């Protein structure tokens, strides 16, 4: 029992609970002294709940122990550069660790957990939508001070944001684990900051989830005022949770940039970096800078609710469209944060399984940066119907269509790489290929939304829902599965079960395509998004039933994946060596990866993707050179 309470996670949660109580107590006490109302929805006033949640997050960080080294520095004490290997067992995953590999796994497990919760919420409202008319989320249904239709709104909104947080955690997992290994670094540039980035995401996710129980919110994941300025208390928890999770993304991006700039092995010139590293750099540039603005826009609404500031309140001279500008300045580039690492994974793995050099390496490397930079100039395409200045529409339309150019470079490269290759089809390769196809669907359905004339019809329809699910699955989910199947042996020394993997693949891919095609079909015919019901006369019932069934099949495949993950980690076929015959440095050493990463340092002596070129070398380990002399 004592051992259980010494785990960083458990202590953090206990601290968070009491910190939140203290915060609520402090504000309620101050309000009582000032003669203000202390009671409100769910027992306390809104400021008390918000301050309590914030203080809870801060006390979580103290309790978990992730701030210990910094506190020692502030007190003038020295700490060891790397923690010694005294916590090598399972316990290291439940407390702050400085090892980027451990943090990568912590991110991964958290991402899968959040994804499971967010996906389950989708199943609930998908069931409601299976037929026209209200099935069970009716006005008489009551839970957490919400009736059925309000709960529908909360579930739909929370599904969106939980999936986004899960994706951010998932790419952080991949980048944390892979980037230092790919560039031959001992660890990230700032290991403590790295641990902090992960641990702040835990209370953030808890606060975000608490919005479901504290009255929910009905704005969708975008949180537009004026609706969000008067939504229930859950809205504030949503804003606070996302703001805190934003710090995780910002600081993670900072760390990746510093690591890649400063800690590459000798010989790894920029144009010899693996494509996934390029993609991580591009992603990190966006998350470092733009993320601040979603945090700011959400905090502005919070301040408006708490202190009566009038940013977005027209009655006080505010401007609701300003929120949309600030919000989309992050939230559009954010979709490139989600997909760029995934597209990098595709470019990274494709040459391994076709045994050919990556076609147009330099162009692919630059295309990631190109997407990231053009991505900063396109946010207005979400606002064609918002009432923003007319003259902005056409420039935003063209800048958005411009994104197709660097994305096209990637597709061209993938086709050129596969062309006449010696293709093999293990599970990771299946996910890579499906990722390309699904992302192509997402890509081709994008320009109609970017073009003003068609978007005026498509805006806020199910067509948009279908489109972005295609881009998110093609750009993130499929490559994410590919990456896990690919690097799993590196992490555990065991292979994931191929049969289960292939069953999962053939379960997921057709049902997912049926899901999004049906979404786009009803969307084109006029089905609105974010509504709990639709007119049976529209004739959408069958399509919605298909979507619901497909949705459950997608969930079943995700469940199968988690079963495979747990099963293979314990009983998978041992795979100590370079099972994919990769040229990448991490596969040249034993699996699972040694704690110190590379005991023998290596140098980069050639191009990363020259598969099938006789005599070519990417990396050379220094001991190997000694022996050959």
């Amino acid at each position: 029992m004592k051992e259980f309470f010494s785990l960083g996670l458990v202590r953090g949660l206990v601290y968070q609970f009491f910190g939140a109580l203290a915060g609520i107590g402090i504000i309620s006490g101050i309000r009582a002294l000032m003669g203000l109302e202390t009671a409100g929805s769910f027992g306390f006033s809104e400021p008390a709940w918000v301050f309590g949640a914030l203080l809870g997050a801060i006390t979580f960080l103290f309790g978990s122990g992730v701030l210990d080294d910094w506190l020692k520095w502030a007190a003038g004490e020295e700490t060891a550069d790397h923690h010694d290997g005294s916590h090598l067992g399972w316990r290291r995953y439940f407390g702050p660790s400085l090892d980027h590999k451990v943090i990568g796994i912590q991110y991964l497990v958290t991402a899968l957990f959040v994804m499971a919760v967010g996906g389950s919420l989708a199943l609930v409202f998908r069931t409601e939508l299976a037929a026209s008319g209200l099935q069970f989320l009716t006005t008489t249904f009551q839970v957490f001070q919400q009736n059925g239709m309000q709960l529908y709104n909360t579930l739909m909104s929370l599904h969106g944001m939980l999936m986004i947080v899960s994706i951010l955690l998932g790419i952080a997992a991949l980048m944390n684990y892979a980037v230092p290994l790919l560039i031959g670094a001992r660890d990230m540039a700032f290991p403590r900051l790295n641990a902090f980035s992960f641990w702040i995401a835990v209370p953030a996710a808890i606060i975000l989830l608490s919005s479901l129980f504290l009255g929910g919110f009905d704005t969708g994941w975008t949180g537009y005022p004026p609706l969000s300025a008067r939504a229930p208390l859950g809205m504030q928890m949503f804003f606070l949770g996302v703001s805190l999770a934003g710090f995780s993304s910002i600081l993670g991006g900072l760390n990746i940039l510093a690591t890649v700039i400063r800690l590459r092995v000798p010989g790894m010139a920029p144009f010899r970096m693996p494509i996934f590293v390029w993609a991580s750099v591009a992603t990190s540039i966006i998350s470092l800078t733009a993320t601040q603005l979603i945090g700011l826009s959400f905090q502005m609404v919070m301040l408006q609710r708490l202190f009566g500031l009038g940013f977005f309140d027209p009655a006080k001279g505010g401007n609701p469209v300003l929120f949309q500008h600030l919000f989309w300045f992050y939230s559009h580039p954010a979709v490139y944060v989600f997909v760029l690492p995934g597209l990098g994974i595709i470019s990274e793995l494709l040459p391994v399984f076709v045994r050919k050099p990556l076609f147009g390496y330099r162009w692919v490397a630059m295309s990631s940066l190109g997407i990231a930079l053009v991505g900063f100039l396109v946010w207005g395409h979400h606002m064609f119907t918002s009432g923003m200045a007319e003259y902005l529409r056409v420039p935003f339309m063209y800048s958005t269509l411009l994104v197709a150019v660097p994305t096209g470079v990637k597709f061209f490269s993938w086709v050129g790489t596969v062309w006449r290759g010696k293709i093999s089809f293990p599970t990771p390769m299946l996910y890579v290929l499906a990722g390309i196809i699904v992302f192509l669907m997402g890509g081709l359905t994008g320009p109609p939304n970017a073009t003003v004339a068609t978007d005026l019809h498509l805006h806020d329809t199910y067509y948009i829902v279908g489109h972005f699910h295609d881009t998110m699955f093609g750009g993130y989910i499929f490559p994410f599965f590919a990456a896990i199947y690919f690097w799993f042996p590196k992490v555990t020394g065991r292979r994931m079960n191929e049969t289960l993997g292939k069953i999962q693949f053939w379960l997921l891919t057709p049902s997912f395509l049926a899901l999004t095609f049906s979404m786009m079909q009803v969307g084109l015919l006029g089905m609105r998004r974010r509504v709990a019901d639709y007119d049976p006369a529209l004739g959408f019932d069958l399509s919605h039933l298909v979507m619901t069934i497909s949705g459950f099949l997608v969930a079943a495949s995700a469940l199968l994946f988690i079963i495979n993950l747990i099963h293979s980690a314990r009983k998978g076929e041992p795979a100590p060596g370079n099972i994919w015959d990769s040229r990448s440095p991490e596969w040249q050493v034993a699996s699972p990866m040694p704690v110190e990463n590379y005991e023998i340092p290596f140098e980069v002596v050639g191009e990363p993707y020259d598969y099938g070129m006789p005599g070519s070398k990417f990396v050379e380990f220094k001991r190997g050179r000694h022996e050959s002399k």
Partner: protein
Amino acid sequence: MKANKTNNPLRLGLWVFLLLALLTAVEFAFALWFGSWLLLLLAALAKAGLVLVYYMHIAKLFKVDESIDRESYGYKLATNRLGLWLFMVSDSFIFGGLMLSRLNLMGLTRPELDQALGLGVTSLLLVSSFFMNRAETSLAGGDRRAFLASAFITILLGIGFIIGVLGVEWQLAPFGPGDGPQGTVFYSMTGFHAFHVFTGIVFLVIIFRNGLRGRYSVEKHWAVEACAVYWHFVDVVWIFFYPALYLIGTVVP
């Protein structure tokens, strides 16, 4: 030689301070006589440039020796500098967002504020920047007593700034946070900035305390350098916020 080493940073710091003070006076005159936002912007850019180059030593960011040992203090120092600058780039997006919101909501009008007080708190921050620079350069020159004295003065000036803004200006302002765009803009911009000044003061207290106990040497004082650069960054933010709040355009009707 040794006299040179201790003298030069002081003279440079003084010159920069005088130029900054002069530019602030020029800004004030611009606002008084011309009312041109373009001239104000140019003056603010000139001030920010001076601080970036001479107080924040942006050039150090590019003086990187790749050949030294990865585990050495020098290599990590350069990495730390990069990390701090990336953080400031990120942070400046918050202030940029606030500034754009201010321009969107108020355009070329400004809140109704006490000019003398605005100039007063700006001067406090300006003088504190000079002493922050003194603290850092004194320590780098091996003069621990001057470092401690300057750091202490910086802390006092920082506290003075916060009292000036939160304690005086917030109370004297003829409008509350909910009173129209001027309330929204003024309280949010000064609030976000004051929070950063507050974190800077906490950082200063930490390095002052560790400095008292002799934790820093001429070679190894990254914490002091980081604190100084961060403090100057917060000052640069105010260099843009001051004209945006006090000087641009005409008082809101």
